[in-house]
């Protein structure tokens, strides 16, 4: 199984960070992984996205063109990528920010109010981890122990106190 994951939203939502955690979890599970960010003008104040691949085989193209997992955190990104998702792919949408639904019915779409839930639980800025928790529930892209380790290694040393909040947010996502 190869997970071809596209994560997209605004700069500042932790899109690239979420990708790093997913890649880190794949690494902990001893899979082949790749992480490719957008680094263009879109990142400088506009939309950001990243491609993450997790596979048992060496990764071919690290650029995900037809994702089988798509996490959308703003409307322009949702509109840009929704048609590229492979049939039967998983789509997770932050419904606090995107009031649109997929017109196609051949994908497994989940609409969760991640941003609202983050604020309600005093986890402002961690909607990304709630999205990640939901993905963890709906797919077996990594093992449970891998994700906690990945969060720990991705959070900078100066911000280690934030690890528990990240894990709490993932837990909320998993409960949805």
């Amino acid at each position, binding site marked *: 199984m190869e997970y071809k994951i596209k994560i997209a939203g605004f700069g500042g939502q932790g899109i690239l960070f979420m990708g*790093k955690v997913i*890649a*880190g979890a794949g*690494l902990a599970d*001893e899979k*082949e*992984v*790749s*992480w*490719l*960010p957008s*680094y*263009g003008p879109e990142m400088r104040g506009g939309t950001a996205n990243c491609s993450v691949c997790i596979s048992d085989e060496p*990764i*071919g*193209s*690290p*650029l995900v*063109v037809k994702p089988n997992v798509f996490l959308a955190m703003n409307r322009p990104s949702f509109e840009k990528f929704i048609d590229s998702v492979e049939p039967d792919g998983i789509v997770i949408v932050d419904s606090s920010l995107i009031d649109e639904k997929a017109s196609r019915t051949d994908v497994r779409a989940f609409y969760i109010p991640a941003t609202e839930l983050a604020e309600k639980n005093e986890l402002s800025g961690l909607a990304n981890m709630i999205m990640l928790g939901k993905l963890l529930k709906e797919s077996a892209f990594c093992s449970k122990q891998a994700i906690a380790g990945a969060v720990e290694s991705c959070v900078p040393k100066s911000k280690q106190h934030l690890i528990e909040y990240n894990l709490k947010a993932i837990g909320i996502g998993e409960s949805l």
Partner: protein
Amino acid sequence: MSKRVLMKGNEALAEAAIQAGCIHFFGYPITPQTEVAAYMSKRLPKIGGVYLQAESELAASNMLLGAAASGIRAMTSSSSPGISLKTEAISYMAGSDVPALIINVQRGGPGLGGIQPSQADYFQATRALGHGDFQVLVFAPSTVQEIMDLVYLAFDRAEEYRVPAMILADGMLGQMMEPVVIEKPQTSAHEKPWAANGHKNVRKHNIINSLYLQAEELENRVVERYRRYEAIKAKEQRAEEYLMDDAEIAVVAYGATSRIVKAAVKEARERGVKAGCIRPITLWPYPTDTIVKYRDKVKCFLSVEMSMGQMVEDVRLAVNGAAPVEFYGRTGGVIPEPGEVLDKIMELGR
């Protein structure tokens, strides 16, 4: 097995150089290679090295010339427009037989161009990285792990032949993260009796120079260097062959593009077209022998590049009319999708 860590291509370029014993780095920031300099700025002061952000790219490459002339391992890195600025000193390094490492994490051009991945500096790297008769070794990694391996090799071979070496990467490879195993290089630095590192009254002065006003003397110098180039061409060609055994269409691609090509080649085979991939690992010397080996066996060659068609000329030179050579490319920072390459392969396979 050593531990796998996730690393950006740019970080791996820097870490590999440090592992190889590079203690001096001279740079100037430019997207998409800035992480190389950032990484060096954090690490080198801690290990007794020098990280120096110069006032310009040209200054940085002249500093590299000076540092490498003293016999130490040193490097500089930049991206396309910055490399153009560095070429004056690169030509001097070649003319002074000074081994050093130059990294180009390519972006779209010409001019300031853009900041997205590109392979449009192939001609510059393999034909004219400055004025005069000279070549530099050019290595083209396609994975973050291979970046480590080729940085080691580049330092080693540069010293062996006393020529500058270049790692020709691109923005995609520089920015992406992949697992890497960091292992010490197998080889250690070569003896450098030529180095200008102080004669201490025990030997003659070593003079590092590229100025020879007598035409015959300069000619002799250049001809001697070209004899080394012949040895390099005979011994240092490197290429990977992927599904080439029974291939009818040989797709030639290097660097990040080769990964997209391999995905397309695999898909083409599932659709009944016998495609394979030849991936040059050295761009100079070009792996001509590998192309020659297949030129009477395959129906055609297809060069796929992030450029308007540059490496395709080396494929044509190697094929020498024995088979048709086609080209497919995207440029300006656009990364070709596996589907586009697949369409081209299927069209040729009909």
